[in-house]
């Protein structure tokens, strides 16, 4: 079955492409790029005015299955990913039970193949049961298809344990994804320590609570040689540590979330909107600026959403009791297009690098390129589409978005996974 995508502006910096060309797909791969292509048997989609890029990947997503399907499950999470323009997502292991064995990785991958067209990649727990004390069965999970290890949701507190885990993970040539939080400094912190924590009478989560751990993990990466990926980096100080590590040639990468780029602690007010309760917390405007600069210059490798769906009744609790996190899959692309691309801050090429290529490279996934022979995981973006984020507009089961009410310009219109549409003209297919 052939599919001809006509008249889109095709952007892929990995092959030096930025031109209006037609793309012909057959049997899940790109077979030809060129002008005025035609296809005798098959479907043609006119994408004039749209931008076609390698499929976006979000390497930080909580799908909540198994165990918390009332928040999200693989099907709804997969649909949300498609709606947001992603062809693949990396599922975090902090489900119930925790993904810390090969069997649980297998369950996850098999279930995902059954219920969603979105590619679900698996990460496994770094420590047994996310306890931070004993190694998980990494070899078993690698055999079942895990791509990375992480205790996301908690930082590994014990330095020796982290060192052992990185030493051990190194032999599988996969990265360790680190949630950087030093609990003895963070304590019960729920918002950035500073002006807002004082004004709202909430326990502060200081930047140092994150940076101390980033510094430690960079040192351990140097010690062990294990690839380290800093998750949801949120402070200017953290960016500086990262910059130095990269300059020293260490195998260190990092991601930033849209909420840390586009929201700051100043957005928190006396209404105590728990949708703005994040871990790490929303930081200062100066931090946002440092993160944006680092994203542009490549110090930060990629954008990941930390999609954290929660049920309405959970987020309706008192701020200090409500769970951390915001959904992100369906708003990330629109936010980046509106606030960075449309403003000229981020080029289309860099967008593709940060949202499509980087995650695949970090996770050692086969690259997708706009060239013949590549897997046909593609995202088509309508840069002119105006829309507003509303609670009713989500495909995800969860409505806990920090961006409700925001006016955005641009979104994904079509998503193809292995040549098959998961999003067609803005409508989720499967």
């Amino acid at each position: 079955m052939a599919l001809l995508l006509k008249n889109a502006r095709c952007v892929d910096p990995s092959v030096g492409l930025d031109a209006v060309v037609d793309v012909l797909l057959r049997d899940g791969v790109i077979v030809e790029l060129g002008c005025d292509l035609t296809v005798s048997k098959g479907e043609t989609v006119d994408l004039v005015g749209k931008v076609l890029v390698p499929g976006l990947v979000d390497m930080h997503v909580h799908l909540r299955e198994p165990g918390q399907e009332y928040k999200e499950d693989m099907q709804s999470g997969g649909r949300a990913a498609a709606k947001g323009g992603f062809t693949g997502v990396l599922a975090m292991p902090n489900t119930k039970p925790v993904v810390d064995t090969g069997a649980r990785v297998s369950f996850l991958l098999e279930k995902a193949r059954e219920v969603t067209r979105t590619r679900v990649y698996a990460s496994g727990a770094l420590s047994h049961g996310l306890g931070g004390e004993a190694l998980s069965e990494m070899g078993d999970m690698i055999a079942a298809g895990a791509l990375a290890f992480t205790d996301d949701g908690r930082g590994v507190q014990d330095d020796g344990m982290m060192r052992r885990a990185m030493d051990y993970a190194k032999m599988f040539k996969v990265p360790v994804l680190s949630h950087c939080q030093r609990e003895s400094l963070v304590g019960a912190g729920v918002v950035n320590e500073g002006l807002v924590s004082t004004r709202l009478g909430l326990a502060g989560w200081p930047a140092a609570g994150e940076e101390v751990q980033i510094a430690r993990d960079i040192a351990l990466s140097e010690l062990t040689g294990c690839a380290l990926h800093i998750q949801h980096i949120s402070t200017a100080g953290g960016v500086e540590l990262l910059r130095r590590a990269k300059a020293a040639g260490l195998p260190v990468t990092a991601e930033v979330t849209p909420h840390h780029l586009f929201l700051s602690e100043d957005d928190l007010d006396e209404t105590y909107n728990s949708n703005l309760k994040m871990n790490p917390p929303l930081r200062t405007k100066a931090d946002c600026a440092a993160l944006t600069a680092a994203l542009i210059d490549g110090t930060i490798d990629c954008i990941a959403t930390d999609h954290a769906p929660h049920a309405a009744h959970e987020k309706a609790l008192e701020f200090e009791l409500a769970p951390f996190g915001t959904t992100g899959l369906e708003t990330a692309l629109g936010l980046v297009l509106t606030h960075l691309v449309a403003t000229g801050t981020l080029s289309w090429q860099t967008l593709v690098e940060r949202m499509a290529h980087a995650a695949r490279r970090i996770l050692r996934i086969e690259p997708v390129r706009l060239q013949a022979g590549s897997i046909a995981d593609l995202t088509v973006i309508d840069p002119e589409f105006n829309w507003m984020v509303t609670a009713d507009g989500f495909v995800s089961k969860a409505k806990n978005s920090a961006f409700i009410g925001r006016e955005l310009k641009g979104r994904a219109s079509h998503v193809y996974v292995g040549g098959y549409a998961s999003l067609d003209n803005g409508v989720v297919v499967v």
Partner: protein
Amino acid sequence: MGALSCEHVLNIQDLSNADIMLVLDTARSFKEVNERTIKKLPTLRGRTVVNLFLEPSTRTRTSFEIAAKRLSADGINMSPSTSATVKGESLVDTAQTLDAMDCDLVIIRHRYAGSPYVLTQNMRAHIINGGDGKHQHPTQALLDLFTIREKFGRFEGLEVGIVGDIAHSRVCGSLAPALTALGARVTVVAPPTLLPACPEALGADVSFELDPVLEKLDVVYMLRIQQERIEQSPLPTLREYARLYGIGTDRLARLKEEAIIMHPGPVNRGVELSSEAVDTARNLLLYQVNAGVAVRMALMYLLLGGDKDGLAA
């Protein structure tokens, strides 16, 4: 619409300076009532006032309870042992349940900041914050303002020192911004381990030491040092705290002639205040407690008076 510019009193900033003055003036009338033999008015007959105290409190709850009773409102107390929250009911559910029972005013005390706002989103009643976590305690600030005004007749130009655990003090969270707004100058005095990250947010100057500022103060407001905080070791010992920040004979003698000592209670005798400093005529602790009832009556009257349908709009 009532007499105040706000429907609820969640933060001291909800009240304009004019609102604060109206509350204090009204409280003066109620204070006169409280000096009568028969301390009861029919003003809020038929109105239902709920004291939703989800955190143990004796003083504040009793003060609100007396205030409601003196205004002839029907006062109901819900405390942790009687409330459904121990059964796992969420605050939203509690609010909706109370709303279904048509109460007119809810006073909430809770250990989580911002919880009074949750009530405003889920019920029609007026809400008064009786203390939310480490955030604010506006009625305490009002009774403190009442006391200061009765003593000095003004706020403009007064030097107020708030001494102690500023980091965890909802009292300071309301009092410092209010005093600043009214023209007083506030200095918070505490070791760095008991200061919030950004004390400037309170509109106050900061001093790590008490002695350099002591002699300029008109009001020395001593906060309570809570034993449970000490266990998290922001201080080496209570003995050292008393030495650095406590008011005893020596510091008492160095106070300005007309300076007053205030304390939100209950006092740790021998820690923040020596017995002598508790019992001196300068110490207005009990006056504050007395004013508390009148101020809370005033707030209830001003929020519920003029509320035609008996329920907030």
